[in-house]
């Protein structure tokens, strides 16, 4: 990847081609490693920290994530072939993919940090590809701040874990205990969780993912969040050792449930397609986090079957989401190129002008809505099964928590379905809301190839979820000490042995049979079709004067989500509507203004900003002290410092 980056500096147009080729080879390599069930390998390199070098390690867990990353990267890079908009930042694309891959194959704390930060920095540069746009700069700034916070926390995590050395083997030999373990949990949730979009550090995702070029946001939303989840999982499941108490997973369940609801609700409120997709990423990351949380709690309670079920569900959903989310983002990019905007209020009727892109986007949206027999449904089905099994862990508090989590997950899933219908219904269906949408152009050949490639892989994953979990067997053993085994069959996926389960192929067969029968019997009806103006309860066609005035009477994105905004947004997002009606006789337009506030902004970021201002105020006054005052402050600090050291020595 680094070679590719160097080459790409010389010839920017080559960057996507090389990235696609290398990532494709990487995907094949990761897949063959998983299929052969090869043992874990480690590789010591004599570069890196003086005296320590770098250790690379590949095991089943890394390989599953590598496969997802490389598959999505192949598609994303392929979609950028022939796109001349982003040549300035093109060399960073292979470096970004290489950074993610390095984070996944890292075998020691240093290389993990190196890969993770390479991923952060290169993706920040890629976000700023179109930095002449002010909103892009704002999104980039927010992302940069969050990335710095994440880096700080992760360095502390590595420091806390590296009691006997930086390599993972040394970390496993001395797992953290007591307050150290709690600190690791909190810091990894801040450090990697902020990158993954775990609540409450999720607010940067919608602006940053919307600002980046489509193929970059496809990677950021689809797989960079997964690399961050890999770090969370690697630290909490593997490096912290199997002896952690059961409550270790509870924060994951709580934050995951909050994310599932909040992300899905916000996905219904955003007016920008890519921002809405980024919000749905928050939801999906929340669902995945719940799965890992259940696994962690069950492992602590010594229920290996349930633990492997939860982890398997999370991994399956990672694969599913890592495929259909890039598809949706690439589709959003195609809409932006073809119709000139990502704003729902300016789109509409694209299915007539961009039929292939629309069909692929509808497939992605069906995954997003978790309808059977798609990959999205398989992942969520298994997640629900793991949550339904979780009351076995015991303890009234855990049971009630699980019960509430189940309800929130279901609400998140239904809200995601509403968001999917909203995206497809407003952007692709209906009538164009502007001249640009009416004259939209179909995406280029490489974009279509990339999207259909990733869509067909997602389709296969949906039909054979059991096979995916078979491949993830070594990963599950690393995480929970147990595998899905016979529960993950070729045709049937079951939550427990000798239990009926979910058969994706049978589901597809039933649906196709029913549809085929209906389509066959249809010919006995009168099939002559008359085309005419829409009935619309008798409202006539619009006058020729208003070519785009009339389509504005359709439901817009804001209108579609208005019932949800009134029912849920008021309490969760502090939604406020201000309607300004002109005086009678005044011909100016009436306006409605909606303000929303993410609860994380109110509860986390606003207090933080307040205290930052306070601190800078104090620092400001200190600048203007007289020399005598400055000297006395310094002496005071020195004395205080010595006292602290003396007290610590006494202890």
């Amino acid at each position, binding site marked *: 990847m680094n070679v590719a980056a160097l080459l790409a500096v010389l010839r920017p147009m080559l960057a996507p081609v090389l990235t696609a080729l290398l990532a494709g080879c990487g995907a094949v390599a990761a897949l063959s490693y998983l299929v052969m069930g090869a043992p874990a390998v480690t590789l010591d390199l004599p570069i890196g920290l003086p005296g320590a070098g770098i250790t690379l390690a590949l095991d089943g867990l890394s390989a599953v994530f590598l496969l997802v990353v490389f598959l999505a990267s192949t598609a994303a890079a392929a979609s950028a072939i022939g796109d001349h908009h982003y040549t300035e930042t093109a060399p960073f694309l292979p470096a970004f993919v290489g950074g993610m891959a390095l984070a996944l194959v890292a075998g020691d704390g240093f290389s993990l940090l190196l890969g993770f930060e390479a991923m952060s920095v290169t993706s920040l540069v890629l976000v700023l590809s179109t930095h002449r746009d002010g909103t892009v700069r704002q999104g980039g700034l927010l992302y940069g701040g969050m990335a710095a916070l994440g880096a700080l926390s992760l360095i502390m995590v590595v420091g806390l874990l590296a009691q006997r050395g930086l390599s993972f083997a040394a970390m496993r030999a001395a797992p953290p205990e007591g307050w150290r373990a709690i600190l690791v949990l909190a810091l990894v949730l801040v450090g990697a969780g902020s990158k993954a979009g775990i609540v409450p550090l999720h607010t940067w995702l919608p602006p940053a993912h919307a600002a980046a070029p489509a193929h970059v946001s496809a990677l950021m939303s689809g797989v960079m969040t997964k690399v961050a989840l890999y770090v969370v999982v690697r630290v909490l499941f593997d490096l912290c050792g199997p002896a952690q108490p059961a409550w270790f997973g509870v924060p994951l369940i709580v934050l995951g449930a909050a994310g599932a609801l909040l992300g899905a609700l916000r996905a219904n409120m955003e007016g920008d397609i890519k921002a809405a997709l980024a919000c749905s990423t928050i939801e999906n990351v929340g669902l995945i986090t719940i799965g890992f949380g259940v696994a962690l709690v069950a492992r602590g309670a010594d229920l290996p079957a349930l633990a492997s079920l939860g982890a398997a569900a999370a991994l399956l959903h990672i694969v599913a989401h890592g495929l259909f989310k890039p598809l949706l983002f690439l589709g959003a990019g195609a809409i932006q190129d073809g119709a000139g905007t990502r704003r729902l209020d300016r789109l509409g009727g694209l299915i007539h002008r961009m039929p292939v892109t629309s069909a692929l986007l509808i497939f992605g949206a069906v995954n997003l809505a978790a309808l059977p027999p798609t990959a999205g449904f398989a992942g969520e089905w298994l997640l629900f099964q793991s949550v339904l099994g979780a009351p076995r862990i015991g303890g009234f508090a855990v049971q009630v928590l699980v019960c509430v989590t189940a309800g929130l997950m279901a609400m998140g899933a239904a809200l995601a379905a509403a968001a999917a219908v909203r995206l497809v219904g407003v952007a692709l269906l209906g009538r164009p809301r502007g001249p640009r949408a009416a004259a939209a152009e179909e995406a280029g050949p490489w974009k279509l190839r990339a999207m259909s490639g990733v869509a067909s892989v997602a389709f296969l994953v949906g039909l054979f979820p059991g096979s995916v979990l078979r491949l993830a067997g070594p990963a599950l053993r690393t995480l929970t000490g147990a595998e899905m085994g016979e529960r993950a069959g070729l045709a049937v996926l079951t939550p427990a042995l000798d239990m009926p389960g979910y058969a994706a192929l049978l589901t597809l067969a039933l649906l196709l049979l029913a549809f085929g029968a209906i389509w066959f019997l249809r010919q006995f009806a009168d099939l002559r079709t008359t085309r005419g103006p829409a009935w619309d309860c008798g409202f006539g066609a619009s006058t020729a004067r208003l070519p785009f005035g009339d389509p504005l009477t359709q439901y817009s994105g804001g209108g579609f989500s208005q*019932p949800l905004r009134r029912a849920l947004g008021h309490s969760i997002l502090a939604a406020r509507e201000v309607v300004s009606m002109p005086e009678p006789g005044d011909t100016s337009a009436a306006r409605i203004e909606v303000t929303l506030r993410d609860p994380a902004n109110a509860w986390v970021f606003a207090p933080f900003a307040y205290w930052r201002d306070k601190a800078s105020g104090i620092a400001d006054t200190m600048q203007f002290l007289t020399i005598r005052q400055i000297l006395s402050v310094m002496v005071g600090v020195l004395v205080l410092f010595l006292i602290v050291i003396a007290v610590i020595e006494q202890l």
Partner: protein
Amino acid sequence: MSIVLGFIALCLHLALMLAAAPLLVGVLRKFKARLLGRTGAPVLQPYRDLARLLRKQAVVAENASAVFVLAPAVALAGTIAAVALVPSFTLGTSTSAASDLLLIGGMLAISRVALALAGMDIGTAFGGIGASREMTFAAFAEPVMLLVIFTLALLVGTTNLDVIATVGREASLGLRVSLGLVLAAVVVLAIVENGRIPVDNPATHLELTMVHEAMVLEYAGWQLALIEFTAALKLLLWMTLIAAVFCPFGMAAPDASPLYWLLGIVAWAGKVAVGTVGVGLLEISIAKMRVFRVPEFLGVALLLAVLAAVFLFVSQGFA
């Protein structure tokens, strides 16, 4: 049950459900009309309506896309696939191993999403209003559905409807407070899912109050026939589903001889008749509620479902 018998049972089940769905609507309308002192249309009227629609040409708006034409068939296919998974008169049909409650919910969601997309395809305000409200109601209905499944899974240990019905049939569950609460939640859910009064009125002609009817406003001809049939089938599906979970008595056991199927069919018809009477009585005794009351209505159901699960935790110390 042998493979052949299981397949025959499945075909018979599908044929019965498909044939009886319009009849159910006809009987329900007749019953409501008689309660209101009207004579009402004959019970076979829905069949005649469907036949009439099939004879008519479809009028499709100029800017309709393939989504609009495919949606009625997709919606019906999703509903039929769900019907194939719900046991009616016998257990252990060919699809019994796949009759997962979450999957049935997913199949019904296919049907819902297809019609919501179709509602937005023409680009009229009424289609949008229907789609938007339908998806909003679903956002509140889905948690109720999942918590109901949650409670049943706690009791039986699986989400498979066939197994749940088998356990219930052997009466090993007994009468439980939790089951009563769950039943109340499911009835509310069924009312919302089918768009019956007090949530929606399938016979409404006032555009602003419509939900389901607003989505399908633009349809005519065979497409409308498919949609009407889907609605009827869905009502029968929910009644059968409730009967299978809460009143599985009289259903033939998986290994029983086909003679028991007759008994099962009679029992199933009786249960559906009771359900029809219940729906009819409810619909004539209550007015349709405002759209924004529906989330509150579902909130009550959600509360009941949560209570059911918590009751189980407390009473069993579930482990």
